[in-house]
Structure formats: C-alpha cells, structure tokens
C-alpha cells in the first residue's frame, strides 16, 4: 500500500516526498499522515490508492484514523470495496478500477484538468456532493414498474416502462453533469454522484393518461442541452438506419427510450430549465405496440 497523493499543490511536492519516505509501510505509521494532510486539507482531500497487497482490516483501521475525508482509488474486488465503504466512515468516494469504463471516465475527467488547484476544487466538490445511491434509483424504478404492472398492458410492458424511466433519469444525470463546468461525470463503484445547488431541483413524475403511461423528468438547473442527441434521434427518426455497435453510442439511452415510446417530447430552455416527457402506449397486444411509430417533438 502506498499513499498516493494525486491531488497536491506543486509547491508541496518536496514536503510530500520527504514525508512519504519517512512513512515507509503504511500500517502503523499511517497516523502521521494527519500532519501531512494539514497542508492538503486546504486544497480539499486526500486521494489514496489501495490494492490486493494491503490487508483489509489494517487498511480500514488506517482510514478510520484519518480525520480528513478520503477518495479511494481501489483495485480490490467489489465485495472488498463494499466492506471498505461500510467500514470506513470517512471514505467519501471510491473509484472501482475493476469497472473499466468508470475508472477510465474518472482518469479521463481528472486528466483533462491541468490546474492542480482546479483538481483540488473538484475533489472538494466531490466530497461536498450529495450522494444519490443507485440503490435509491432502483427503488424508484421498482415503484414505476409496479405502477405499470397495475395498468392494462402486455406482460413485458412494465419492464419497458422501467427501462424508459431508467434512461430518462440516467440521461439527465449524465447530460447534466457533462454540460456544466463545475461538474465532471463520475461514477464511483455503484454510486452515481450528482451535484445540485440548493435552489436546483430534479423532478421525476409518472402518471397514467389513457392510453399512455407518461413519464417525465424535469430540471430547474438549465444545464441540460442535448444538441448531439437531438441530431441523432432526428436522424434515426427520419430513416430506417439503426444505431450500431460500432457507433460511439452517444445518446443510446434516449435511443432506447425512443424505440419504446409513442411520443418523446423535449422542452429545453437552455440556461433555464428542461423537461423530457415520454409517453408509452399501454397496449394489451405486443403486435400493436411493435407496429406503432414514435413521434419526437422538440
């Protein structure tokens, strides 16, 4: 185990190097990192790295001995990561390197930040963010699916409605985070991090308006902008071409929703607010559902 100080003020490099050398193996002497961190707290956080070589109990003890919040980059198994998250109260965020895409996202996102100060700000933002667990999103999706089950419709329809809800929510989070300077799209293990200011809201609603099941997501952040996705959906709606595995798959979620819905309505006011409304036909027969055309309104 090495303490990996990924976020650091260049002026502290020499000091960190000296201290890191003096720390040696991390276990028993880790507490002295507190001193080291005094300089770093001002900048936001410590980023530590853990791998298979580190005995988990001692690492947890070390983490708990730190008074500063820690972002951990882990190459452990998911099960071990869960143990860490549960055992270390000050572990604010965890990047799971087993999840190839996500860790690449993290590296890519942070790699683009050239200013060390800015990196520190981003780290600080991560620590201050309100965390919405994906488990909470699943609970919401379970509710949507159960509501859909109570409506008339073929057996697969509740799953499709769940998929639309899932994609609308996901799209809003990802698109929202990408379009804002103060956000970077990050997933830590099984957690999606969402940064909203106090006055900002994201609302998800669903209702039945026969013959449709209507799903709607709206945000008051004004951050959402979908020009690329608009163009893609427009392209697919005009022709017979399908999205293909060799494509960049940008907008895949909305593309799936487009294929399921009867109507997809975008009301986007850049800088102010946006609402996406999806109407799913409550068809009893799958054939009727499959033969429907989708309309897009912008």
């Amino acid at each position, binding site marked *: 185990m090495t303490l990996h100080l990924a976020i650091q003020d260049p002026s502290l490099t020499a000091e960190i190097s000296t201290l890191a050398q003096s720390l040696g193996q991390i276990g028993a002497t880790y507490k002295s990192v507190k001193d080291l961190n005094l300089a770093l707290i001002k900048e936001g956080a410590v980023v530590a790295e853990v791998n298979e070589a580190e005995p988990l109990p001692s690492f947890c003890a070390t983490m708990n001995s730190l008074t500063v919040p820690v972002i951990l980059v882990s190459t452990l198994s998911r099960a071990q990561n869960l143990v860490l998250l549960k055992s270390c109260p000050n572990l604010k965020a965890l990047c799971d390197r087993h999840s190839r895409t996500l860790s690449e996202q993290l590296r890519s996102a942070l790699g683009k930040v050239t200013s060390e100060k800015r990196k520190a700000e981003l780290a600080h933002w991560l620590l201050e963010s309100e965390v919405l667990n994906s488990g909470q999103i699943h609970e919401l999706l379970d509710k949507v699916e159960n509501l859909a089950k109570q409506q008339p419709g073929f057996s697969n329809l509740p799953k499709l409605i769940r998929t639309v809800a899932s994609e609308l929510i996901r799209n809003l989070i990802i698109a929202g985070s990408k379009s804002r300077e103060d956000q970077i799209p990050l997933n830590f293990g099984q957690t999606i991090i969402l940064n909203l200011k106090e006055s900002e809201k994201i609302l998800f609603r669903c209702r039945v308006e026969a013959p449709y099941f209507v799903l709607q997501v709206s945000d008051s952040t004004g951050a959402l902008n979908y020009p690329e996705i608009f163009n893609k959906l427009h392209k697919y709606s005009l022709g017979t071409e399908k999205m293909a595995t060799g494509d960049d*798959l940008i907008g895949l979620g909305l593309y799936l929703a487009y294929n399921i819905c009867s109507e997809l309505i975008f009301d986007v006011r850049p800088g102010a607010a946006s609402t996406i409304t999806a109407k799913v036909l409550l068809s009893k027969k799958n054939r009727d559902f499959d033969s429907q055309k989708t309309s897009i309104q912008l």
Partner: protein
Amino acid sequence: MKAMRLFTFTATATGKRLEIKIAGHLDEESEMKIVQPTGFDEIEINLSGVRIINSCGVRQWIRWVGDMPKNVRYQLVGCPKIFVDSANMISGFIPKGWIVQSVEVPYFCESCENVTLSRANTASGVLETPPKMPCSKCDSHAELDVEPGHYLSAIKAAHGSGGES
C-alpha cells in the same frame, strides 16, 4: 424484488465446451466476466433468466461480446423478448456468426387477455412455433403476438440469412 434484480453470471466448462448462464438485470451493476480464450470449441450462452437490459447493460454486452474469444462456435439459448428487442434496435448486437438457438415468444389470448410465454427454436432462421397455442389461463386459442419477420430480423442478420435493414 431485490432477488430478481440480482445479476448472476455463471460459467461451467465441460471439455471444450463452455456453458454460460446470465440472469437478472443487465445494467450498470452487472459484472460480465471475461472469458479467457483457452481452447473452447463451443460456447453456449443461456440468457433465459435476463429480465431487464438498460443502456448500461447494452454497453456491457457489446463490450463483453467484443472481448470474447474468436474462432469459437457461439450459441445463444432462451433469449428473452427484451433481449430480442434490444437486438432489433441495435445493429450488430448479436455478432455475425453467432447462432440464436431459441427465443421467448409471447402469445396473446383475446378471451382473457392473458399472455402465454413459449419458447421457439430459431436456429434455422425461422421462428419454429405455431401461430396459435392454448392459453395457459383459460385454454382458449392464444395467438402469436409478434410479427415473425420483424422479430427475427436481427437474428437472421447474425445468422447471415438476411434480416436487418
């Protein structure tokens, strides 16, 4: 509900044959394991337990099939409708040369509006299932509730026998 959501991935090797079973929700939390390219002639992937596929699941699947060993005979078994639908939405979702042995097909009963699910062989590129079958609830005639040409579009494309536009 939680148990149904659980993603499971199991692989059992018998000689040069590998059987993979994938079940549950194929989404951002599912972990598709890499199959090492070590001497398998045939890999059968049983998808009958897959319940949900979202866009993260689609991406996972595409990445996973792209990493699978080459020069192996692949067979997909028990593809649920949600998988077939995904394949029909995204070109190349089932790689060329992979054989879809069987799919789930719904039958709709006009009398009681029940849906009976059945399994149909598709290895020949044709939906081998009757146009009607007894409803599992009221025993009336339930009608095949998919348009075979559309339903098999992606499968035919993978088999190299036409299909996808």
